[in-house]
């Protein structure tokens, strides 16, 4: 059969090498992309952490003049924006990328090049958001960017424009990643892995991806609105023309509340893998955990106005949102009980990953309880804009999400690198982080109840807030020591190189059945799945008596649609065809970034961006997944 192929003239050769810088720039391998997500977001963790330390240094004493009010505004804006969009979300994405294909028995994600596009957009978006630091005009309107305060009339300069454009780019990256993982999880499961045989982490990734795809467009529209207001004088939030500040709040929080579940559901997935492994028991109530996750994701769309109880929406709206907010605590509480019941009568092994997961349960429960407190509208009126709220969301996002991410890091590190992280240093790190975290954020409960307002750059000495603030600031330094210990542990353990083997934890899911680090193609033969935690029951078939019989479903031989499927003659005998590398995703993301940046810098840059972007798009769609030249496959 004859085929005609269209190609674009190549300016650079398609990257081929498996080592060196080009092997990373051109990669479409989910493992390398995951690693890059991890490294880039850890860099932003250090940046966001430094901003937090600056905030704590400023607040360590009353009437401090360490930073100006304007700099303080920039610091808390960028701390929040960085930690949400450039740290917790992409760290979760690092785990998605690394683990989803491994957990479902696939050789890559459904769209490897689109995966690479997400990574580069994330990199460029982060740079655009932070570009203001270089020009002295960092965004200063809060991570929530309340209009009209973030509009051009009250906030001249470029700061919030960087914010709007950068977050738009990050939003495109998130939607693309979300779409990719939805298709991957639905379509690329190993034969026999029905939906309710999937690992819990895979389930939480699926739910998170659906939330991303549906929630990000809402803030995308809000960002377009504030962006056109700032750049082209439209009136969405122009008070002089009737623009309504409450509309912005609705739009932001309609995105913002699903967003907090986007941040926490992957963390819940991580602890749901770690706890059963080290309690030597199956997860208690797997179905309850899954359906609670689905319930949280669904109800998460009906609680947004609890961020707006003091706006004056009226008693009917406030009551409705108070009730829905209290109700969402139920599925969350169900999960906490399931995790604890998993531990009951388990043979518990207290290593670093387990300690972080148990800390997650404890700290997240504290944060959840203070959350239920301000679910009550009258109580919230007292707590709105005080440090009590700051304490609450740091207990759920640091005590919750970050603890789980550290847990997952210690748990999967051996799988990703092949060598173990040192447990003893890890224990010290765990204790340091837990201690510093509680030193820093527990006092904020009292400060908030005493009325200390958020986002105010200083307080006077007659308020009586100095000692608690000093403790909180000292806690910040303790956390910083914990992070440094982590970095030290990585380099120390890398030097010691205690090799992990395939399955150092005697764990349950498919990723532990293959070598560490996994080969490029992950699975030499695609596994046949019969049970939930299939690898565990392969190792311990005698534990199977209470398991349900196997129900084959979704059977497939080779998981690749993007790659040519079926055994062609030149697949070196192992029948494995992986997509070739490509630099077009990088070109497209560069084009998008320059095109959007050109809206600020001038038409010439938009034109350059459009040319690069279109070249990338056409090159991409005309580029075969694998070059047809004989001998050119991976």
């Amino acid at each position, binding site marked *: 059969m004859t085929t005609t192929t269209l190609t674009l003239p190549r300016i650079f050769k398609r990257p081929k090498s498996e080592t060196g810088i080009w092997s990373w720039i051109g990669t479409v391998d989910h493992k390398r992309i995951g690693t890059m997500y991890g490294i880039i977001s850890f860099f932003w963790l250090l940046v966001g952490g430094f901003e937090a330390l600056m905030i704590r240094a400023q607040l360590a004493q009353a009437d401090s003049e360490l930073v100006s009010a304007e700099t303080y505004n920039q610091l808390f804006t960028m701390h929040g924006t960085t930690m949400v969009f450039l740290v917790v979300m992409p760290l979760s994405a690092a785990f998605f990328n690394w683990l989803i294909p491994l957990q479902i028995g696939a050789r890559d994600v459904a769209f490897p090049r689109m995966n690479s596009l997400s990574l580069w957009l994330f990199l460029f978006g982060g740079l655009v958001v932070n570009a203001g630091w270089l020009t002295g005009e960092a965004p200063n309107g809060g991570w929530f960017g309340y209009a009209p305060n973030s509009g051009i009339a009250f906030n001249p300069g470029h700061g919030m424009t960087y914010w709007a454009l950068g977050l738009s780019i990050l939003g495109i990256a998130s939607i693309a990643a979300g779409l990719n993982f939805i298709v991957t999880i639905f379509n690329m499961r190993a034969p026999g892995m029905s939906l309710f045989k999937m690992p819990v982490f895979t389930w939480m990734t699926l739910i998170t991806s659906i939330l991303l795809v549906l929630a990000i467009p809402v803030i995308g529209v809000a960002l377009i609105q504030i962006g056109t207001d700032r750049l082209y004088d439209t009136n969405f939030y122009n008070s002089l023309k009737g623009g309504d500040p409450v509309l912005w709040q609705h739009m932001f929080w309609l995105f913002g509340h699903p967003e907090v579940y986007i941040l926490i559901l992957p963390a819940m997935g991580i602890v749901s893998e770690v706890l059963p492994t080290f309690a030597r028991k199956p997860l208690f109530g797997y179905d309850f955990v899954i359906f609670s996750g689905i319930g949280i994701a669904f109800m998460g769309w009906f609680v947004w106005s609890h961020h707006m109880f003091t706006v004056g929406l009226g008693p009917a709206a406030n009551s409705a949102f108070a009730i829905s907010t209290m109700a969402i605590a139920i599925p969350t509480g169900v999960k906490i009980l399931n995790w604890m019941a998993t531990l009951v009568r388990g043979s518990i092994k207290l290593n670093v990953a387990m300690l972080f997961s148990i800390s997650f349960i404890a700290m997240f429960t504290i944060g959840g309880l203070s959350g239920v407190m301000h679910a009550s509208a009258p109580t919230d009126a007292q707590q709105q804009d005080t440090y009590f709220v700051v304490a609450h969301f740091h207990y759920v996002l640091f005590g919750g999400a970050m603890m789980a991410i550290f847990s997952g890091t210690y748990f999967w590190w051996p799988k990703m690198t092949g060598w173990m992280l040192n447990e003893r240093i890890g224990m010290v790190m765990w204790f340091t982080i837990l201690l510093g975290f509680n030193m820093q954020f527990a006092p904020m409960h009292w400060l908030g109840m005493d009325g200390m307002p958020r986002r105010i750059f200083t307080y006077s000495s007659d308020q009586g807030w100095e000692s608690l603030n000093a403790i909180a600031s000292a806690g910040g330094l303790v956390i910083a020591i914990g992070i440094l210990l982590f970095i030290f542990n990585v380099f120390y353990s890398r030097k010691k190189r205690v090799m992990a083997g395939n399955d150092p934890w005697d764990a349950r899911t498919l990723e532990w059945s293959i070598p560490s680090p996994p080969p490029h193609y992950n699975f030499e033969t695609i596994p046949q799945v019969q049970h939930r935690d299939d690898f565990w029951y392969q190792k311990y078939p005698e534990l199977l008596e209470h398991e349900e019989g196997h129900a084959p479903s979704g059977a497939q031989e*080779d998981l690749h649609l993007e790659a040519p499927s079926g055994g062609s003659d030149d697949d070196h005998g192992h029948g494995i065809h992986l997509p070739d590398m490509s630099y077009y995703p990088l070109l497209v993301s560069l084009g998008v970034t320059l095109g959007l940046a050109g809206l600020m810098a001038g038409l010439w840059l938009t034109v350059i961006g459009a040319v690069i972007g279109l070249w990338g798009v056409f090159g991409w769609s005309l580029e075969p997944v694998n070059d047809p030249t004989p001998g050119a496959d991976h």
Partner: protein
Amino acid sequence: MAHQAITEYHAEVHDTTYNTSTGLSNRKLLMWAFLASDVMFFGTFIATYLVYRNRSLVGPYPENVLDIPITTVSTFVLLMSSLSMVLALHYVRDGAKISGRFWIFVTAALGIVFIGFQVVEFYTFVNEGLTPVTNLFGTTFFILTGFHGAHVTIGILWLLFLLFGHFKGTLRSDNSLDLEIAGLYWHFVDIVWIVIFTVVYLVTANDGAPPGAPPFIGPHG
């Protein structure tokens, strides 16, 4: 030999069950998920339009500029492009070369006519004194319909690209999925227009000056 693998990969016919867990093609599932995302995108813009209904402080108001009869014509043109899209897919699947090409071309051409109507409409409105900076109506109207127009434009470019591929032999009956996915997008953009036409033109076209706002005299009066 890898070459042969590529052709095998392309040798999927539209009613094949795909070699995936669900039996659906990855790319088709991707498009459906993307359309769900796009629903939220347009939904948010339409909600903004409705929230700001009757809240412009100065004219022109919808009753001063919106022209239902002309827009009904352009709406008809766009809806007919959905019909021609269905025919195009049908003939490409059947391998009818000339008819396939003809209907892809007709679909793209109807899209271009629709965009032409929109350009004339925007131009007229600006002449009558309504721009995106005039008032809330102008802002919400132009950004909402503008983004819809951008979606149609992307669809036109996509169809022309496929038409080019049909001439070159890269779009054939055995990989008509390429056209089917473009068709999903095209139909979705048409459906969005039905909502916009209903909300913006049929529901709010008679909105005049809200209480307290001055009536619109006209740019030249």
